[in-house]
């Protein structure tokens, strides 16, 4: 009897320790989260993310940002700057942290309830102590632990995905800002050319060589060029501000932000489809996210089959009864089992819900897998097409335009064409250069989108049409 009692006591102790240990496992820290994101995405971001929590942290980050802002910010530096400077990213990190913490919480066992009762009845004093906990809670700990881990995993993957998206947006905003700034410089040249034409026409009219209509034609082109410059100027401002927001720059940081004068050169060779395929077969975030979500749902479903039906409360009880009248004392002990009666809720809805959730997750996974390949192919097509177009501009269109300009210069020298035709041609050439810049911009946007697609955060890539139709502002015919 005594032996039996002690062995029972040992068992209880063991299970309590187990509970404690298991509960301890399902914890998560922000460092773990960041480590995970950094592991997953460091190749993509080319930098490390950290959550600033102290004033010291913030000061350090400001210092790094200032250093990055001291020189023209290239695309890579723009991403670095976002990593250290963007409050949106910091918010994302904190959000990821609390989601993980919430998830970890769900894997913990609820604390046991200790109750103490003291009852006096006449001479009788009864002290009762009870330690109770949900039996299923304990028994399902390993299962719930697994679920919590999935949820943590999910929140981490989701965070990585959000970071990838933010970085992609930074990259694209940088491309747009640089291209707009570059186009603006050329739009200024168009205006200068138009200005020279208009001024020359004005002087020609003043000495009687031009009539009003000829002069007005040149003047009209100038007026039009001024409008286009204003639009280009706004475009440069708005794309720059978009970048400023994504980098999280404050007023004074925004003021010192300098961008390179031009977009990077096109890579010598575009990635070929087989290389892209190889990179893509590595685990994609979106697929893994769908996978963990399915695993989580499946596990939860198994668990809910049990928990939805019954909830068993187990209580260990030890009472002490002291009878002052008789001076006797007894220590009865025992246990109590409480079962929630499935009268109103037989758990059917909950099981249905979990069932549906699993089916949904399974379908979601399949859908993700299927669309992953397709969206990657689309991304690649956008990337490859924009590469070919940009290269075509660089190697064919722009050189051809240059040949035309050179020949026009020769024709001007031979007095075969006049100065207005020469100026109109120079404007056409500049417009071609602007179109070429647009084509490069398209490529770098598609490149950023492809990188995001490869890691598993498909980004919309629609190519806009780039043309360089010659200006209508012809010469005096």
């Amino acid at each position, binding site marked *: 009897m005594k032996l039996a009692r002690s062995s029972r006591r040992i068992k209880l102790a063991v299970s309590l320790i187990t509970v404690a240990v298991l509960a301890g496992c399902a914890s998560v820290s922000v460092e773990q989260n960041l480590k995970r994101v950094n592991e997953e995405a460091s190749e993509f971001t080319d930098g490390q993310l950290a959550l600033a929590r102290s004033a010291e942290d913030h000061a350090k980050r400001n210092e790094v940002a200032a250093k990055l802002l001291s020189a023209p910010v290239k695309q890579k530096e723009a991403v670095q700057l976002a990593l250290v400077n963007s409050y949106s990213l910091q918010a994302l990190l904190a959000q990821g942290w609390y989601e993980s913490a919430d998830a970890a919480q769900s894997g913990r066992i609820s604390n046991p309830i200790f109750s103490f009762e003291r009852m006096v009845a006449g001479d009788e004093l009864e002290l009762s102590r009870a330690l109770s906990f949900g039996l299923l809670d304990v028994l399902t700990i390993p299962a719930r632990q697994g679920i919590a881990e999935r949820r943590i995993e999910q929140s981490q993957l989701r965070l990585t995905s959000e970071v990838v998206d933010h970085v992609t947006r930074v990259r694209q905003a940088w491309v747009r800002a640089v291209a707009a700034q570059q186009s603006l410089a050329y739009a200024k*040249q168009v205006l*200068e*050319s138009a*200005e*020279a034409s208009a*001024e*020359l026409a004005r*002087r*020609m009219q003043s*000495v*009687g*060589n*031009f009539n009003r209509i*000829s002069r007005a034609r040149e003047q009209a082109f100038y007026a039009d060029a001024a409008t286009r410059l204003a639009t280009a100027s706004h475009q440069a401002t708005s794309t720059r501000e978009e970048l400023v927001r994504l980098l999280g720059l404050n007023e004074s940081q925004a003021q010192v932000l300098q961008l390179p004068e031009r977009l990077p050169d096109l890579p010598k060779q575009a990635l070929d489809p087989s290389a892209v395929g190889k990179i893509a077969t590595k685990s994609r975030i979106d697929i893994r996210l769908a996978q963990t979500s399915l695993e989580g749902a499946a596990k939860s479903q198994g668990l809910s089959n049990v928990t939805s039906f019954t909830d068993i409360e187990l209580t260990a009880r030890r009472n002490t009864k002291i009878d002052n009248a008789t001076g006797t004392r007894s220590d009865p002990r025992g246990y109590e089992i409480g079962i929630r009666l499935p009268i109103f809720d037989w758990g059917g809805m909950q099981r249905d819900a979990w069932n549906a959730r699993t089916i949904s997750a399974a379908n979601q996974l399949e859908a993700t897998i299927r669309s992953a390949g397709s969206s990657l192919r689309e991304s690649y097509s956008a990337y490859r097409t924009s590469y070919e177009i940009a290269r075509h501009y660089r190697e064919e269109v722009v050189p051809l335009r240059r040949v035309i*300009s050179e*020949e026009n*210069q*020769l*024709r*001007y*020298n*031979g*007095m*075969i*064409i*006049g*100065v*207005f*035709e*020469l*100026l109109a041609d*120079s404007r056409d050439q*500049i417009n071609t250069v602007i179109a070429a810049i647009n084509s490069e911009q398209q490529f770098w946007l598609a490149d950023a989108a492809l990188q995001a697609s490869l890691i598993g955060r498909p980004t919309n890539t629609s190519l806009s049409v780039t043309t360089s139709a010659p200006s209508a502002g012809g*010469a*005096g*015919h």
Partner: protein
Amino acid sequence: MTSRREFFKYAGIAGGAVAATAVSRVAMAALPEPVIQTSPQTMAPLVPSSGRPYNPVVTLNGWTLPWRMNQGVKEFHLVAEPVVREMAPGFKAHLWGYNGQSPGPTIEVVEGDRIRIFVTNKLPEHTSIHWHGQRLPNGMDGVAGLNQPAIAPGKTFVYEFVARRPGTFMYHPHADEMVQMAMGMMGFWVTHPKEKNPLIDEVQRDFCFLLNAYDIDPGSYTPKIMTMLDFNLWSWNSRIFPGIDTLNVRLNDKVRIRVGNLTMTNHPIHVHGHEFTITGTDGGPTPKSTRWPEVTTDIAVGQMRQIEFVADEEGDWAFHCHKSHHTMNAMGHAVPTLIGVDHTGIAKKINKLIPDYMVMGERGMADMTEMEMPIPDNTAPMMTGEGPFGSVEMGGMFSVLKVRKDQKPGDYKDPGWYKHPKGTVAHEYSGPLTEPARFKAEGGQSMPRIQKSAQPTEVQVRKPTSHKDH
């Protein structure tokens, strides 16, 4: 080359000519070997070695086609074919012509000669030849479809007639005429008088050339055949100044110049330093009573004119068409007039965009010849020609009549620039200038206008200023 022997037969009469062998020798056995000219230079006159004698002409930047006598018939062989013609040094054109050149060789015959002409077509399309101005049997007149079937590519036709009247004539296709003439197919024809003719004088120098025009885009080689009137190259015998040879004569030579017009506009041909008379037209020698002295004669489309004068003034005399656009080479017809337009500050602005830009035309177009900037390949500058006193600033239909007392009879060599006797060249005046007395001429009006212009037109005349700031 198997034709070397043939070549030697003609050697010395037409320098640089070679006999062609491209057409099958078997097929050609009964035909005179065609003679091909490779040089665009003016060839020495072809003095006849057979047939009736005559005083040969000199074709400006051209040559005379040798012939053979076959049982009393003069036999010529013309080959219609694509040619490359150097229109001026450094500028070549892809034309169609005869026997290696455009225009084709001059055919010289004597009044009363029976002539047989073989025409071989090596063009990608059919052709025919019309003997412009000749009296001949209707079936020999050469209008494809009307008088004969067209000569298909690769075929040889034969024309035969008697040169019935002396005079100045030409030949050109009359099948797809517009294209073939725009491509340069034409040639000169001279029928010399059989015996002394009271209306035809003996001359010491007898030159001939055809007026023709092309539209060749600067930098290209082939004429635009659809051009109707807006030609950009005005040529003599498919040559443009400075590619036209000078007319070199001996002092007091009697000179005859025969000109035919196969362009689509008239040309007032003008000689400096002398007066001439028109001694012949398409119809033959003119009656003496119709001749009056002139310095310019307008040659209408499709016409021939024969002018004569005694070259009795020594010097280098300009000889040209008097339509000033016709003494220019390729130029833009839509180039705005910039004369008098102040360019201060503008050139700099334009240079930022177009680094090679230079202001031209602010003072006039002579800038063009002064600046000597690169122009498109295979293009003759609009105006050019370096004379002894600087640029002549000409192009197109321009040449020089050189009269020298020490030019040998029958020698057509260029004697170089004229050496002016002392004090006979215009020079800068360095004495004092007095203000000229000015007068005010107030012209009337034949009839008053009903509608008055709102404001009197103000015209500002800008006096020439120095050319600076660019």
